[in-house]
């Protein structure tokens, strides 16, 4: 309606030129006033309402007031029609009005666009504390975890990992290990036998023999593997468990190397302050033989933890771990190695005991139950 009336006024005045531009100025003023009136509601950017709807309203407003058919466009056309001497002045007027309109439109549009974008961001806000999308990861068995750690230590110390058969002949399980027929260790009821007369290996020491037969000497190996003993399952016994056997044979190897090696890998596993203790003992396949203990990794050998008796070492400060010794000459002879030229050490210990110590497992039967409530604790 307003546009129409402005238009009609302009048409009416066209045939005459004038220099005071009263009507032309009125036309421009009217265009400005019309815009001002309509733009009023966009002046305050804080006004509530749907920013997106207001933005499209604003776009329409821009078309109406700056488009080809707008009063402003008409005003521009008048520039050519006013007297040349005042054309400059009139032109400036029109331009200033246009600038004012466009600037305000641009500012309002920018602010509305920002509001629209903000609203969209707000609407799409997520709860970043929800769990990430991934399948629930499984866990390695604690025996595998402990085995890997120990294997890595020994490989870095120049040892090769070996394993071999789990069902063995008496020769490999006993004779070659200097446990002749009639020996108490052999006739003890520890060993499982198959109906065909084969033994389930009762120690991974069998791998010593197999490996020396295969690789000869010098040799440095670690043999982790399953072993079997006729123990009824209870908190500290299971009929199948894992041992790690170590063997080093070369010229000039002594018990000092045994002590040094055992101490070194225990330090790497439990920390630099670990110390070891060797006590005389007896194993048929070593002479001299020793059992080894290491200073408790929990209480660092003090036997006390936060004023209480330390659990892993039962308050003694020492943890008994395994057996060891210098390879018995009969074992070396069994694989054709001259014990007057070569000597070696061997040691062995149980992985279940190691895992029980490291993870404070009070009942080693858990290791074979496959209860997920147990397994999932070792991540």
């Amino acid at each position, binding site marked *: 309606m307003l546009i129409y009336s402005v238009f009609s006024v302009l048409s009416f005045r066209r045939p005459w030129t004038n220099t005071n531009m009263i009507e032309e100025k009125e036309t421009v003023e009217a265009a400005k006033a019309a815009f001002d009136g309509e733009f009023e509601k966009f002046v305050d950017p804080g006004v509530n309402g749907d920013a997106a709807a207001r933005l499209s309203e604003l776009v329409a407003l821009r078309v109406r007031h700056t488009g080809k058919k707008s009063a402003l466009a008409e005003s521009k056309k008048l520039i050519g029609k006013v007297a040349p001497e005042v054309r400059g002045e009139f032109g400036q007027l029109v331009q200033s009005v246009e600038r004012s309109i466009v600037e305000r439109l641009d500012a309002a549009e920018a602010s509305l666009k920002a509001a629209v974008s903000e609203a969209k961001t707000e609407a799409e806000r997520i709860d970043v504390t929800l*769990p990430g999308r991934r*399948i629930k990861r499984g866990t390695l*068995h604690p025996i595998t975890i402990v085995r890997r750690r120990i294997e890595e230590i020994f490989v870095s110390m120049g040892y090769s990992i070996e394993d071999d058969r789990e069902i063995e002949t008496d020769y490999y399980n006993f004779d070659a290990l200097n446990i002749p027929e*009639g020996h108490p260790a052999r*006739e003890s009821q520890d060993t499982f036998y198959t109906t065909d007369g084969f033994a389930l290996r009762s120690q991974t020491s069998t791998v010593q023999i197999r490996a020396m037969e295969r690789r000869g000497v010098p040799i440095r190996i670690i043999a982790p593997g*399953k072993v079997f003993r006729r123990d009824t399952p209870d908190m500290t016994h299971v*009929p199948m468990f894992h041992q790690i056997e170590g063997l080093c044979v070369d010229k000039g190897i002594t018990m000092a190397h045994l002590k040094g090696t055992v101490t070194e890998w225990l330090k790497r596993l439990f920390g630099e302050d670990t110390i070891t203790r060797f006590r005389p003992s007896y194993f048929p396949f070593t002479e001299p033989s020793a059992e080894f203990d290491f200073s408790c990794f929990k209480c660092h050998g003090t036997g006390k933890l936060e004023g209480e008796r330390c659990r892993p070492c039962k308050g003694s400060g020492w943890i008994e771990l395994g057996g060891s010794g210098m390879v018995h*000459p009969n074992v070396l002879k069994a694989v054709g190695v001259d014990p007057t030229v070569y*000597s070696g050490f061997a040691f062995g210990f149980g992985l279940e005991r190691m895992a029980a110590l490291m993870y404070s497992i009070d009942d080693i039967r858990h290791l074979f139950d496959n*209860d997920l409530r147990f397994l999932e604790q070792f991540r």
Partner: protein
Amino acid sequence: MDISLNWLKDLINIDLSAEATAEALTRVGLAVEGIERHGDDTVFDVDITSNRPDCLSHLGIARELGAALGESLDVFEPEPEIPMPPVLAHDIVRIDDPKRCYRFTARIIRGVKVGPSPKWLVDRLEAVGERSINNVADITNYVMLELGQPMHAFDLDKLAGGRIIVRPARAGEKMVTLDDVERSFDESMLLVCDAEKPAAIGGVIGGLESAITDSTVNVLLEVAYFRPDSVRTLARKLGVSTEASHRFERGVDIDNIVRASQRAANLICEVAGGQKGEFIDIYPTPIHRTEIECGDVSNAVARLTGMEVSESKAVSILDALGIESEDRNGLRVFCSPSWRYDISIEEDLVEEVARHTGYEKIKELLPPASGAGEFQAAEPQKASVRNCLIDMGYSEALSYSFIDTAWDDVFQPVPKLDRNEGVRSVTLRDSVIENAVRMRQTALPGLLDAVKLNNNHQIRDVRLFEIGKAFISEEPGELPTERELLCIVGSGGDLHADRVEPERTLDFFDLKGAVEGAFEAAGVEAAEFEAADLLHLRSGQSASILIAGNKVGALGRLSEEIAQKYKFRQPVFVGELDLTAVLAANRRTSSYTPIAKFPSVRRDVTFEVGRTPAVAAILRSARTSGEPLIEHVGLVTVFEGGSLSPGHRAVTIRVEYRSAERTLSEEEVEYSHSRLLARLDSELGLRPRK
């Protein structure tokens, strides 16, 4: 064994505290595992290794302590005595089997008065955990604990003929032993008999009938030596283990017999009255001591322990332990004492010197560097497989290698462990877990037990795998075959991290994906799957797994029958692979193909098919069409339901055409595509769905 400190002090001078004494013992290999006060006495629980039966007595412990502390022993020394001449003695004691009974002494004590033991005796026995019986029996125990010599007192008047015959049992012979059990004997068993019947089991346990009772007046005291392995066999056969058999099995000091007999007789006379009578000593089989030639003990000690111990120091340690030596033509010869059966080579001497010098004096050295260490060849592959499976949500399980015979012929093992013709599983003679005597041919029962256990604990979403060996018998006399298996089980839903409810129920394809992942992780050729019926799997949801055309395992849904046995209330999917075969398969290889310069043209085509042909067959036919412009054929979707008739599937595949030389024209693609469709029609009867 329980050792009384007061008792030790009777035998040797000890100035140390109880704790220091225990430490000294532990240091030389007699591990003291417990120290307990008992009245004014202290009792050590000493762990004695099986090679040291000589230490199963206070004398033995005192001897070690003496060597460690430099003190000499004050032990009972027998009066010289002349045993009864053999001619007469044989009327009282006869050994029919001198290969098993090397020596037998009998001493007659007349006029004893059996009754309670005096307090000192009761106290001593109780301190070391022995119960008092009567004064005569208590003395036999006391002397055994003191000198290590097992002995047995018979009521002489109850021995038929008043005599002893050591002989093998006769078929059908029986006797009630001291533990009130009637035992039957076979001819392999060595008995101590009277003129008519068994009176004791040699070296193991006495008979009840000839035992000392309150009415006993005359005693025959047996102190003998039986061969260790014969006592061991006998005790095992009869299922008894006694303080006596424990010592005889390991070896007692044959030269200590007279001392023990006289000591016991004196003490019996002291506490029960009576008079020592005849002493019979039949000794048909002497034991020769071992002699060890050792040119240079000091050098031997250095060679094995790295310790510097002088020759004289080494010799004096050995001497203190009773290992005497002499110089024979410039060579030192050591002689093992009668109580030590574990000293026979130079290394044994080194151990004696080393432990009495102290293992703590041995240095800690690392051996000189040698080559680099190495993992087992297959370990990186196995590590990858393990890691891949845990990433896919499977936890590693470990189950026993021996399984219940109830699972025989229920599961179909992997082909290499399933040779139907005359195949035998490996069986144990016996087990410690009821019926678990079968060495597994499959690891599935273990994993299914685990599913059951978890289900019982309200854990329904279970994904597990195990890597371990399985076994099968070979020809008689040959060691069984051992193969490593990878076994996998899944049941319940696809539980996601930090969620308590799964989004979706696991199915065949979850397990298949895990198996495919394992192959990829192992770096070997991709597995192929073909529908197959297997013993333990549900028909129609089971597949054989092949690699390079060879079956290496199977995968599928557990059969209804087995599921019912386990009382599973949800589907369980299982897979088992011959990991040994998988890891031996050809490694996957990669080679570079130049990246295409010209665009490709894609054509999707949908076929409506029934259960057959399998999608794999459709893809294979398309891929092997030989059309030169086909670059790739892939699966888009398989749709079931909707307007399709039941059992029908709409299979959409995508064919990608490309030339390395130019941009393809519409006509070229159309020509190739129609030829491909014609081939699919003629080979598989497939027509594109409109």
